[in-house]
C-alpha cells in the first residue's frame, strides 16, 4: 500500500474537497436560481418563486427545440450503432494493413476540435453541395452528429468483443448454426449491453453538442443547446434558462444510472 503521512492524506483530501466544490457549487447555483423570482441570476437570492418553471412548461420554442434534439439524437445514434459496430468487428476480428489508420479515422471526428468538424461540414454543404443543387437541410445536422458519435459505439463494442470467448462461437458453428444464427443467438447477446451503453453515450453526446450544431443546423432550427445558447446571449429572461438547465442536470442522472446498472449486470454475469 502507498504509505502516506497524515499530513499528506489531509492535503490530498483537501484537494479532493476543493475539486468537488468546484464541480458542484456552480451546478447547485443553477438549480437554486431556477427557483428565483428575479429575471437575472444573482446571489444571494432575494425571493423564491416557481414562476419560471411555469413559463418553461408552456413554452413552445423549448418544446420544439427539445423535439429537434431528440430527433437528431436518435438519427445520429442509429448511424453510430450501425457504423460503430461494423468497424469494431472489423478491427477486432481481422488483421489487415491500415488497421491503425482505420482506428484513427474513427477517433478523428472527436479528436479534432468541434469547430473544425463543424466548419468542414458547413463548408461542404454550402460551398460544394449547394452549388450543384443539393440541399442537405435537416439531414446535414444528423450526418454531422452521426459522424462524431461513431466512436462511442465503436469503443464500447470493441472493448466487449475483446472479452468474448471465441470458442463459444466456434461451438455454435460446429453444432450447425448458420453465421446469421450464430450472430443472433450467440454473438449479439454477449455484446448487447455494450451496444446499449454505446447507444446511450452516443445519444448523450449528440444531445449535448453545440459547436458542430451551430455550423450544421439549417436556419431557424434550434436544438435544446442552441436554444440555451441564444437565451444566454440575450439574457432578458435569463431565469428561464436556469429551469431548462436544471432539467438537463436532472436528466443527466439517467445515463449515469443506466450505465452503472449495465456495468453491474455485465459484472454479475462474468
Amino acid at each position, binding site marked *: 500500500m502507498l504509505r*502516506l503521512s497524515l499530513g499528506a492524506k489531509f492535503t490530498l483530501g483537501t*484537494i*479532493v474537497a476543493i475539486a468537488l466544490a468546484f464541480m458542484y457549487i456552480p451546478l447547485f447555483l443553477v438549480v437554486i436560481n431556477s427557483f428565483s423570482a428575479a429575471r437575472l441570476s444573482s446571489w444571494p437570492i432575494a425571493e423564491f418563486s416557481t414562476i419560471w418553471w411555469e413559463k418553461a412548461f408552456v413554452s413552445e420554442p423549448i418544446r420544439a427545440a427539445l423535439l429537434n434534439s431528440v430527433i437528431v439524437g436518435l438519427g445520429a445514434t442509429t448511424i453510430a450503432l450501425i457504423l460503430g459496430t*461494423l468497424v469494431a468487428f*472489423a478491427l477486432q476480428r481481422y488483421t489487415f494493413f491500415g488497421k491503425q489508420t482505420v482506428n484513427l479515422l474513427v477517433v478523428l471526428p472527436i479528436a479534432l476540435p468541434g469547430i*473544425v468538424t463543424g466548419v*468542414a461540414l458547413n*463548408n461542404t454543404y454550402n460551398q460544394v453541395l449547394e452549388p450543384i443543387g443539393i440541399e442537405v437541410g435537416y439531414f446535414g445536422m444528423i450526418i454531422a452528429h452521426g459522424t462524431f458519435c461513431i466512436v462511442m459505439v465503436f469503443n464500447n463494442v470493441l472493448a466487449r468483443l475483446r472479452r468474448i470467448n471465441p470458442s463459444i462461437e466456434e461451438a455454435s458453428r460446429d453444432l450447425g448454426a448458420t453465421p446469421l444464427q450464430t450472430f443472433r443467438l450467440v454473438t449479439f447477446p454477449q455484446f448487447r449491453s455494450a451496444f446499449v451503453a454505446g447507444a446511450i453515450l452516443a445519444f448523450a453526446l449528440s444531445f449535448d453538442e453545440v459547436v458542430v450544431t451551430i455550423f450544421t443546423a439549417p436556419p431557424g432550427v434550434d436544438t435544446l443547446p442552441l436554444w440555451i445558447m441564444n437565451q*444566454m446571449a440575450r439574457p432578458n429572461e435569463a431565469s428561464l434558462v*436556469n429551469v431548462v438547465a436544471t432539467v438537463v442536470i436532472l436528466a443527466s442522472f439517467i445515463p449515469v444510472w443506466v450505465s452503472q446498472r449495465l456495468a453491474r449486470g455485465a459484472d454479475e454475469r462474468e
Partner: protein
Amino acid sequence: MNRRAQLSALLALPMLWLIGIYIFSLVMLLVTAFWVTDPFTSKVKPGFTLRNFEQIIANPAYATTSLRTLGIALAVTVLSILISVPLGIFMAKVASPKLRAILAVAITLPLWAGYLVKILAMRITFTEEGFFNSMLGPLGISGPGFSIVTVVLTLTYLWLPYMAVPVYTAIRQLPPNLFDASSDLGAGAGFTIRTVVLPLIKPAIIAGSIFTFSLSLGDYIAAKFVGGSTQMIGSIIASNINLNPPIAAAFSLVPIAFVVIYLVSVQRTGALERM
C-alpha cells in the same frame, strides 16, 4: 465468403461514410482555404490564391489569438493533470471502498451535466453580482470576473472528467506490491509518486490530455460567455464563416495543425489505442 471479402463487407459502409463525408470535407476545407471571395458579391469562387494565408500572417491579431488559444489549452491541460493526479491517488489509495464508489460517481456525474449548462453555471458563479464575489467579497477577495482566468477555469470544469477518469483508472490498476517494494526500499510517498506512479500513469495522462487540449483549442463558446473580451481561434473562425468562408477555412488549419502536431508527438507512447 473468404476473410478478405468479409472484411471488405464490414468496412465498406463505415469507410464510405468517414472518408466520403468526413475526410472529403476536411480536404475540401483545405482546398477552400485557397479559394477567393468576390469582394463585391462576397460569393465564394473556386480558384487559387495565397491571399487568405497572407492576410492571416499579416494580421498580428491572428497570431496573438493563436498563441493565446494555445496557452489556454495548455493551461487547461496542466490544471486538469494537477487536479486529477491527487484526486486519483486519494480515490484509489486513501479512500475507503464505499467513499471510493461515491467519488467515482461524483467525478463522472458532471460529465453529463451538459456543456452549456456548465458554462451557464460558471457564468452565474463568477458574474459581478454572483456567488463568488458575494461569498469572498467580505474577505476582501474579488473574483476574476469574466476574463481569461475564468475561461481557463471553465474549460477545466468542462473537460476535467476526460482527464480524471483515465488517470483514476490507471492508478487503480497499479499493482499494490509496487508501492510496498518502493516503500521497503526506503522511498517516501512523494518520491514513490514521482518515480513509480507518474511514469506508469503517463499513457493515461497523455490520453486524457488529447481531449483536454483538443477540446479547449476548438472552444469559443466559453470565451464568448465567460471570457469578457477574450478571443480564441474559434471566435475568429466563427465570425468569418459567413462573411469570408475561405479565411475561416484557412484559419481553421491552425487548430488542426496544433492537434496533429500534438497527436504525432504522443503517438509513439501508444496512448492513442487507449482512447
